[in-house]
């Protein structure tokens, strides 16, 4: 136990930080309760998928600058397809869009492998391509979403035998997030393919020499990133009921959360839990700043400072650990 905690010291630290933040929130706003927690998880949703998309590729030693554009494209695609369509049609739209994300992500990977151009340039190029495609699909915000899909992220999960006051704290959005991530991540993490992701991120040469199919693994990493990106895009459509072709602020946010979550840029280290917790931390900080009615320009400063301080603290502790 102690050992696992130590090994995951960073994530543990983040969880503690998150808990503290909840306490602080409750102090600022004594009325903060279940409904607010539901709101928080809804706000977390697109960020969480964006950061998941970023995490997979960063673990595999890459970086994906096209995350936000991927979300925009998949979101408008879903919104356009569902606009005016029947409720059932959405049952087709969802897998279609997920597949689309997966394939476009794979395309990212294929371009990287085939062109041998560094990830950062390829995904910068696809950032523009996907964003352009989003504009071609929908040149201004619009489209629609099936009601049942929108309902998926509204309110808590009703659990039959639990009193409402308890299950009020289990938002549907959270359940959706956990299920979507777990379905992809847990089997992956347990498989040899999952190890291969870490391996190519840690050392491509050593991985190649260990018999890892480097190209295939890399393509898979980007495909998964595309898949998570599509989930993010769908979550945007679900929570707004429309699609917007201009990418939201998810690219930098995803990179920041990846680093805050203890995943090393450069690859090979870290997991998905840390970045997801980091997303909660960042969103909750935002909530607290709003609750406190901090001057909005100062808010920007505070968010920047928090980001820097947390990482600095982590680095400082790591340094002390190493010394002793």
């Amino acid at each position, binding site marked *: 136990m102690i050992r696992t905690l130590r090994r995951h010291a960073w994530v543990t630290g983040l969880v503690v930080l998150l808990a503290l933040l909840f306490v602080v929130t409750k102090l600022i706003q004594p009325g903060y309760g279940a409904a607010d927690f539901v709101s928080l998880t809804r706000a977390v949703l697109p960020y969480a998928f964006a950061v998941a998309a970023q995490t997979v590729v960063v673990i595999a030693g890459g970086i994906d600058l096209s995350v936000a554009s991927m979300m925009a494209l998949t979101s408008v695609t879903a919104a356009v397809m569902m606009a005016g369509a029947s409720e059932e049609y959405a049952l087709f739209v969802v897998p279609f869009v997920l597949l689309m994300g997966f394939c476009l992500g794979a395309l990212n990977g294929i371009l990287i492998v085939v*062109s041998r151009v560094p990830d950062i340039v390829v995904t910068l190029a696809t950032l*523009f*391509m996907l964003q*352009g495609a989003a504009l071609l699909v929908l040149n201004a915000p619009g489209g629609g979403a099936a009601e049942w899909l929108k309902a998926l992220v509204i309110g808590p999960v009703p659990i039959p035998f639990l009193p409402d006051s308890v299950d009020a704290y289990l938002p549907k959005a959270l359940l959706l997030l956990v299920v979507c991530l777990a379905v992809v991540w847990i089997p992956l993490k347990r498989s040899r393919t999952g190890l291969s992701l870490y391996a190519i991120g840690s050392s491509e040469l050593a991985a190649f020499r260990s018999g890892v199919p480097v190209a295939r693994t890399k393509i898979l990493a980007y495909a998964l990133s595309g898949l998570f990106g599509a989930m993010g895009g769908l979550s945007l459509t679900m929570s707004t009921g429309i699609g917007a072709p201009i990418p939201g602020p998810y690219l930098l946010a995803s990179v*920041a959360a990846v680093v805050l979550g203890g995943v090393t840029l450069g690859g090979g280290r870290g997991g998905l839990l840390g970045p997801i917790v980091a997303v909660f931390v960042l969103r909750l900080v935002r909530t607290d700043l709003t609750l406190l009615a901090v001057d909005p320009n*100062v808010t920007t400063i505070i968010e920047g400072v928090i980001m*820097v301080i947390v990482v600095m603290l982590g680095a400082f502790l790591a340094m002390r650990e190493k010394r002793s």
Partner: protein
Amino acid sequence: MSDSATAAVPPQPFGRRLKRLMSDQPLIPLILLLVALVVALQILRPGIVNPAWIATTIKFAIPLAIFAGCQTMAMLTGGIDLSVGTVATMAAFIVATQGVYHDPAVAIAIALTPALVIGLANGIGIGVFRVHPLIMTLGTGLIGTGFLQVYQRTVIATGTAVPPGLAWLGTGLTWGIPNALLLFIPAAAFILFLLNRTGFGRLLYAVGDNERAAKLSGVQYWQVILVLYVLCSLLAGIAGLLYIGLIKSASLSLAEPLVLPSVAAAVIGGTSIFGGRGGYLGSIVGALILRVLITLLTILQMPEGARQILFGVIVLGVTAAYLRIIEDR
């Protein structure tokens, strides 16, 4: 598989020799790519490649190229500087608003102060506390933006005055040649000299290639990183001053759109984001390539979405072609 039992190296065909030349002088193919883009532009819009256009392109490429200089140096150490956009914007906005009260020299000094402070913060955070450069500079960029917004509140009704010297430098031409080159040529020469002929330049490469090896040779990482980021910030501040001279309209996000392209320019120019490899001449050509590409897309009549797709396709195509040409493995 052919059999080559003989020891003698066979005489190389012309194609191979050309390739060898290109891989030894990677700048040549990069410049050829630039020329190809210019030719494409001229074909699509005959007459556009004229002295006025060339001057415009150079004027707009210069701030980008200075930014790319920051990125090149930072990337050589395995870093990146995302705060350059904020730093430049702050310098620009502050000089334009302080220019109302103070004479240009004073206004410029005030405008460059945040650059110095942010550079120091970046350097200390990255060099001493080992914060990842991406996060550190993203953070200081945010903080800087916040301060700029706060500052902006205090100068709403002071008007703006871009120092005429900066406007002359930014927009002026002498015998058809942009005055901005008066600033850029020495700056570029300085960066090139720094990278190729000074101890500090060597250390940028060394630290980015193998930090441990550098350490064992007596290099103090934090010193190198501190100086690097301060230098980057100051260069970004200067680029901001030049940019306000060029655009002449102080806005709160003036130079932000240059940040991603500056990284792209450095990468297209052959600098590795993982450190240790690259150089500034390539980045300058990279900046020119991007600028020409932007013109090309502006001029082409097509839906905005298609334009963006084309931009992505060309950036990728150019970089891939360039890599193919220079690699010799």
